[in-house]
């Protein structure tokens, strides 16, 4: 067997993992790898304009496609710039592998040029991380990194590659299997627990399914739909779970939590049986924890044991993969057809109550003379194809997207739910567009957050990625202003963005297209035009600057106490 350089071996490991795209940025410590990449034809490299953009793109690529996203950056600042993106992926359980250059092993610890202890820095925000000290460990470590990223509860893994290791030579052999004594995720749910769960569900009178991102990660949407339809149990999803259950399904309650629907929050308040699947009882979902689902027996299906009974006490925990557990639940229910029929019939009263809540306080907004951001999202929903991928930034834009865009399928909604990272949406949309070049990809943004990774416009232009950016421009950091308005006596401390670039000129400067919209009557035409343009477009909607997101549960209040429009 001939020997090859570490850098070549590294690319070969990616090939074995089926990697087709790398997002990244070169630098001194990774020169050897980039020298190899120049001649690689079967893996495409996408050059971002900031390392944060590269990680978010890898994340968007992973969320939309289900494949592991890959990112490659240099040491020191290149690596530290990825931290926000890694933490974002960690909070939302997104499988990415981030490769960082490192100074040569003999310089590690010497405060060398562009040195940072990246393994130390990223330890709390990765599922696992590695420093490759010996080139012979490289194939095993890369194999483990991909395995850890995509299995169990998925998450980001970082591999630090010192320059001399990439220059050393190795007889390349890729391991067939991964053997990690301390990592054996449980996929199959415990049969006894599943039986208890089914017994409880069949006895319930006002059950609710509360589905989260885990349903999407385990590709369990079809099973979830089947479970709900079999029993007629209504389904509410978290922000991360949007699309896991079709939002236009009659059993859909929409999103729950801080900006969820009235009916969803009332349903979880009055339910006697809360069935949590792949969700983690986040504080934005539960509101005041003592008054969350106070009357309910709670069952919780999750692949991560640490999620169970972390925030609320769970009556029936089931550790396992959502898809497999749901399959087992469905199987058990199919054997008890009589009881299932009785349950479905019994739920008439419950559905009646939910309808009452819905007709009393549906999702709505007041019309006005200025462009309403909710209206822009509604029109966008109407005009875009069913398989459109929508990313968001963070804040009001994110909540309006979640409320007024209808997600009918999984993996179409890309948003930073856990960490709440402004600047996530645009690069994530770029990553999704790389994964699906022919689909429509839209980033719903605010004028604040779009500026946090606006440099990626150059990436979109360079690679001909026709991402459409919908800026809901209210000249404010809108969500923070909303809180200041509600809880800080309208003292708008530093949330006014009176000075912003002319986004049309800015798009032009990057070689993209920009459209300015100032009248409600122009919204539809502008979106149609943007969708027709073959390249990236920024559409700058000057929306009602004082519009707030409703309904709303104030932080720390019970979810039944909603502020309504």
């Amino acid at each position, binding site marked *: 067997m001939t020997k090859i350089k570490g850098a070549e071996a590294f690319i070969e490991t990616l090939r074995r993992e089926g990697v087709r795209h790398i997002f990244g940025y070169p630098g001194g410590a990774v020169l050897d790898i980039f020298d190899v990449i120049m001649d690689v034809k079967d893996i495409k490299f996408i050059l971002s304009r900031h390392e944060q953009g590269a990680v978010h793109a890898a994340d968007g690529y992973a969320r939309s496609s289900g494949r592991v996203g890959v990112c490659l950056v240099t040491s020191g600042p290149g690596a530290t710039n990825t931290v926000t993106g890694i933490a974002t992926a960690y909070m939302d359980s997104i499988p990415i592998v981030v490769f960082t250059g490192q100074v040569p092993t003999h310089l590690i610890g010497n405060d060398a040029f562009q040195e940072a202890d990246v*393994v*130390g820095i990223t*330890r*709390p925000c990765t*599922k*696992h991380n590695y*420093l490759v000290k010996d080139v012979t460990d490289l194939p095993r470590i890369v194999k483990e990194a991909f395995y*850890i990223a995509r299995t169990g509860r998925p998450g980001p893994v970082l591999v630090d590659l010192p320059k001399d290791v990439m220059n050393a030579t190795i007889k390349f052999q890729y391991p067939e299997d991964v053997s*990690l*004594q*301390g*990592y054996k995720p449980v996929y199959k749910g415990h049969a006894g627990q599943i039986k208890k769960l089914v017994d409880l569900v069949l006895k319930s009178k006002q059950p609710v399914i509360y589905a989260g991102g885990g349903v999407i990660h385990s590709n369990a949407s079809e099973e979830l739909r089947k479970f709900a339809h079999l029993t007629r149990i209504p389904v509410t999803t978290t922000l991360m779970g949007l699309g896991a259950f079709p939002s236009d399904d009659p059993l859909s309650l929409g999103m729950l939590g801080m900006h969820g629907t009235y009916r969803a929050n009332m349903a979880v308040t009055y339910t006697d049986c809360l069935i949590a699947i792949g969700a983690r009882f986040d504080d934005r979902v539960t509101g005041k924890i003592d008054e969350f689902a106070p009357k309910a027996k709670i069952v919780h299906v999750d692949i*991560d*044991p*640490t999620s*169970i*009974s*972390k925030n609320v006490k769970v009556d029936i925990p089931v550790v396992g993969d959502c898809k497999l557990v749901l399959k087992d639940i469905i199987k058990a229910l199919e054997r008890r057809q009589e009881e299932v029929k009785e349950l479905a019939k019994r739920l008439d009263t419950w559905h009646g109550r939910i309808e009452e809540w819905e007709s009393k306080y549906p999702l709505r907004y007041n019309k006005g003379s200025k462009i309403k951001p909710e209206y822009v999202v509604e029109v966008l929903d109407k005009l875009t194809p069913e398989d459109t991928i929508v990313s968001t930034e963070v804040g009001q834009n994110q909540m309006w997207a979640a409320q007024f865009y209808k997600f009918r399928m999984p993996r179409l909604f890309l948003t930073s739910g856990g960490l709440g990272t402004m600047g996530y949406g645009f690069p994530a949309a770029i990553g999704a567009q790389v994964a699906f070049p022919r689909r429509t990809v839209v980033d719903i943004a605010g004028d604040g957050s779009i500026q946090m990774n606006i440099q990626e416009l150059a990436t979109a232009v360079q690679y001909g990625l026709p991402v459409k950016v919908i800026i809901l421009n209210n000249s404010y950091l809108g969500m923070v202003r909303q809180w200041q308005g509600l809880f800080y006596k309208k003292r708008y401390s530093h949330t006014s963005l009176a000075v912003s670039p002319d986004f049309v000129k800015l798009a032009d400067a990057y070689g993209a297209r920009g459209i300015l919209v100032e009248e409600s009557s122009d919204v539809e035409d502008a979106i149609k035009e943007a969708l027709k343009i073959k390249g990236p477009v920024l559409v700058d909607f000057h929306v009602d600057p004082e519009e707030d997101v409703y309904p709303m549960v104030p932080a720390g209040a019970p979810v039944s106490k909603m502020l309504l429009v």
Partner: protein
Amino acid sequence: MRHVISVLVDNEAGVLSRVAGLFSGRGFNIESLSVAPTLNPEKSKMVITTRGNNELIEQIIKQLNKLINVIKVVHYKGKEFVEREMILVKVNAREDSRAEILRIVDIFRAKVVDVSPKSYTLELTGDRDKLEGFIDLLAPMGIVDFVRTGAVVIEREQKKRRL
């Protein structure tokens, strides 16, 4: 309540900081810690003592299990384990107290490991109550320096009789 947990881990660089970081990052408290390789040099065993209610301990154990380098976590409960700590203590030894110190050493089955005209250095192994009793008795003589290991524990052979 005090809890004793042993954690079998890969003996690799950075593993201690993963465990310590888990505790600090989640606001768990480490009361004492001891780490050393096992008979298999590729593995290390950590013994951690911590405080918290049952829910917290359950969460700590689950979080520890989640770490890739953690192979096994054992939570020791009741009296099903033997626990030992060791202390080294340097105590003032004046003319009038030397004999008393040696008498205490004898009662506790401690050892004198260093002697100088002014001080004795003593070594004692035992459970926490014993060590604390020892320290209480020595305190009036004037403790010059003091160092204590974390707890180490081992499971007792099961003495359950099955009928």
